[in-house]
Each structure stands twice: as C-alpha cells, then as structure tokens.
C-alpha cells in the first residue's frame, strides 16, 4: 500500500508494521468486520419479522396455523443452534438444486444420489459453476442469513408471544367495549404497548445474535474469526511478512471488537427502554411518573 513496502525483509519496525497491517489479506480481515455487521443488520429485522409471524401463528384462532407456529417454535428452540446452522443451509442448497434439476433437466436419466455423490445437471447448479465468485459469496451469505433468521425468529416468537400476553387484558377489553374489532384492538392497544415487555427479551436475543456471528465461519464464510486465525498463525519463509504465532493478539482484537459491539448495544437498549417505559403500567414507568410528579 505504501511506496516503501517493496521489500518487507529490510524495513525498520514501524514501517514493517504499517506495511504488514495494510496487506491485501489484512484488508480482507477489515472487510470481514463489515460482513459481520451486514449480517447483523439484515438478520435482526428478518428474525424479528419471523418472530412476529411466529407469535401471531401461536396466538391464532386457526388450529392449523397454531400447530405450525408451535411446532416451529418448540422445534427450533429444542435443537442445538449449531445443528440448525449446519442443517438449514445444506438442506436449502441441495433442495433448491434438486428442484431446479427436476425442472431444468427433465431428460436426465441418472439418479441424483449415486453412492456418496449428490449429482445434478450443470444447469441446475446454484449458483452456476460459470457464475462469478461474488455470486457464490452472495448465495452462501443468503443461506447463512436464512439460517440465522429461522433460529433467532423462533426465540423472538416466544419473546413476542409472552409480551403480547403481558399487556393487561383489561386494556384490550376496554378497547373492545368502545366498539373496536379484535384486529383494531390488537393494532391500537396491544401492539404499541407490548414492546416494553418484549424489549428485555429482545435485547438479550440481539446480544446472543451478535455473539453467534462467528458461526458464519462454520458455514464457510470468511468472517473475523477465520481471518484472525488465518493471519495470526505462524508465517514461515513462504510468506513475505514472517512472524511467529500471533493468534493471541488477533483474538484479543476480535474480543475487543465483540465487547465494543455488545457494550454499545447495551447503551442503546437502555435508552430505548427508558423511552418505551414512559407512561407504562410497569415498575419502570411508575418510577418515571413519580420522578416527574
């Protein structure tokens, strides 16, 4: 990156360090931080959406919907996350390829499974082998995103369901007594008030989601943890920049990154909680009323 970086072996310490930290592979590490943030920014609203749908399904008057919601929530909550992170992307990937195979290659006469091999025709590959590398990355990232949304959606569904039940029933009844339909009472009374009950659970989920992002590494996405391990390992004379095992420093950096993330989030949630508690029939809301009175 800098003009003096041509021969790392002869550089004085600080220049060596400056060059070392700006190699292309270090930029890949810095980029991977953005990948993690992007995943969080997309997975959180998706999971919240899944959770909201899940909570509505569990509360639904329709027995089929209720069953679907209950099975989803209890199944995901009852299976180790890591199993889902390994299973969901694989199942979707092979499922999509299988379906595309059936549609795109009807004349194919060999079985899809041959011994250990999973074989679909070249046109059914997802993405196609001829697609550029970024398409493969986007596809892998999307699969990971779906897995995160599914798993965290189930937890969010349980939290939101609990929050909906926590809003005093008398308030909804009052709304109905004023002639609101159940849907109106839900929208106007229950929905605005449930968040204060949901927030502690949701902020918990957000923290766990933040801390679960290193699981990306399992799905073959090169995240911060991957690069910390890759760059921190001992570099022998095969590399331009040789150094002993520096993983402890790299992992310390990753540790600081995650701690900063969760600390910042906690600050944000504290302020949000204060806003939502305003005028609520909760202990926090009551304390605020007394303070101003």
């Amino acid at each position: 990156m800098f003009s003096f970086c041509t021969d790392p072996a002869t550089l004085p310490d600080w220049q060596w360090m400056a060059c070392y930290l700006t190699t292309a592979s270090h930029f890949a590490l810095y980029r991977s931080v953005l990948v993690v943030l992007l995943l969080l920014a997309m997975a959180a609203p998706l999971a919240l959406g899944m959770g909201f749908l899940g909570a509505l399904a569990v509360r639904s008057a329709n027995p089929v919907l209720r069953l679907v919601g209950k099975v989803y929530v209890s199944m995901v909550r009852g299976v180790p996350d890591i199993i889902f992170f390994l299973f969901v992307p694989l199942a979707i990937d092979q499922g999509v390829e299988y379906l595309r195979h059936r549609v795109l290659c009807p004349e194919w006469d060999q079985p899809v499974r041959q011994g250990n091999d999973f074989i679909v025709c070249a046109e059914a590959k997802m993405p196609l082998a001829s697609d550029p590398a970024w398409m493969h990355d986007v596809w892998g990232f999307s699969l990971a995103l779906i897995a995160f949304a599914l798993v965290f959606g189930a937890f969010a569904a349980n939290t939101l369901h609990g929050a909906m039940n926590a809003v005093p029933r008398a308030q909804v009844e009052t709304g109905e007594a004023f002639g609101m339909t159940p849907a109106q009472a839900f929208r106007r009374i229950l929905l605005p008030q449930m968040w204060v009950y949901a927030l502690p659970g949701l902020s918990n989920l957000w923290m766990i989601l933040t801390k679960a992002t290193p699981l990306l590494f399992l799905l073959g996405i090169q995240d911060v943890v991957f690069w910390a391990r890759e760059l921190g390992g001992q570099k022998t004379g095969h590399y331009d920049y040789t150094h002993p095992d520096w993983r402890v420093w790299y992992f310390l950096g990753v540790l600081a990154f995650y701690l900063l993330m969760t600390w910042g989030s906690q600050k944000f949630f504290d302020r949000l909680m204060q806003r939502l508690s305003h005028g609520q029939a909760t202990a926090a809301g009551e304390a605020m009323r007394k303070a101003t009175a």
Partner: protein
Amino acid sequence: MGTEGAYPPYNYINESNELVGFEIDLGNELCRRANLTCEWVQNDWDLIIPNLVGGNYDTIMAGMNATEARAEVISFSQNYKVPDPSAYMALAGTDAGVMESGVIAAQSNTIQAGMVAETGATLIEFPTADETIAAVRNGTADAVLADRDFLVTYVNESNGELEFLAVVPSPGQGVSIGLRQSDEELRATFNAAIDSMKADGSLNAMLIQWFGEDVPVFE
C-alpha cells in the same frame, strides 16, 4: 477446484489475499493442458471431502494422499507427488520415547492422525496444520506428526528450537487429485494431463521450485 489454503507450500493464502502454492501452480497448468476453465474454492480441511461429493467443487488438490480409506468415498487421479514421508517434529532435546508414549498432535482427518492412533501415544487433533505446530511450541503436545515437506520450513527457520525426531513412511499412493467416484471422465482427463507434465519434466521443475532440490522427483 477445492483446496484448503492453509498448508504452505502446497497451498496457502499470501499477503495479497491470493491462493498460491505448488498445487495452485500445478492445478492451473493441468487445466491449461486439459483445456478446462478452472476456478479455485477454499474449503476447510475437515469438510473438504463432504463438499466434493456434495458437488460444491469437482476436484480436491490439497496435499491429499491417496489412501484406501479415502478411496472408499472418493476416487483419485494418479499421484503428482510421490508419497511424502511423515515426520515427528518436537522441541529440541525431546526424548524420542514420546513417539510411543507421549502426546502427539496431528491435523484431524489426516493420514498422520490415523498413524498416531495406531501407536501407544495419545493423539490430539487440530483442525488446521498451523495449530498442531503451535501446540508443540506451547507444550500442549510433545511432538507433531505431519508431512515432512510441510514441517521442514518450520524446522529450518526455528534457529534450532525445533527438530525432527524421526521420519517414517506414510501409507497411500502419494499426493493425488481427489474426484467424485462418478466422475470417471474428469479423472481420465487429469490423468492424461499429469502424464504429459511427467513426460516433459515440467512437473519435476515445479516440485523443485516449491519444495527445493531435495524433493523426490519422478523418473
């Protein structure tokens, strides 16, 4: 084409964030000779065979020895490097007895992990080769068993801190390209390309370029 990208000088990621190494050069040349358009994919060693049979890539070139156990799941081309001897590496002054009764580190799912399991020594496994070396340096393991050609750089650059305890022959037919068993056609294509590189001496030149003058070459 799948590779691990963490096994210098076979295959690794350099500072420019590019896959480089003996197998990358070799694979590109084989593809050129076979008129194939090839793209490299980096994959964790532990899942490198499942992702091959799952169809995420069509070949493995990752310092993989063709052994009988692996041949039950995938097929192999002819070898492009004669069987690497394995070597025990330890801190200088370590008693050779640890090979039979000590704690030996090896990368998981390697032939060396299997070899250690058959001795009286305790095996501890790590997902990457780099971590096995770190385990020896910090005393978690008494020695590491791995391909000698991988370890030799670490020994030479350690200023006498690390040394070889013993060199032992490895099982298998040598380092080869791993392919799906249903992919006979591709296997024949690569075998022909390897033949042509063995015949004109370009494979030997590449071996010497990456592993040094002492590497065993093809006749």
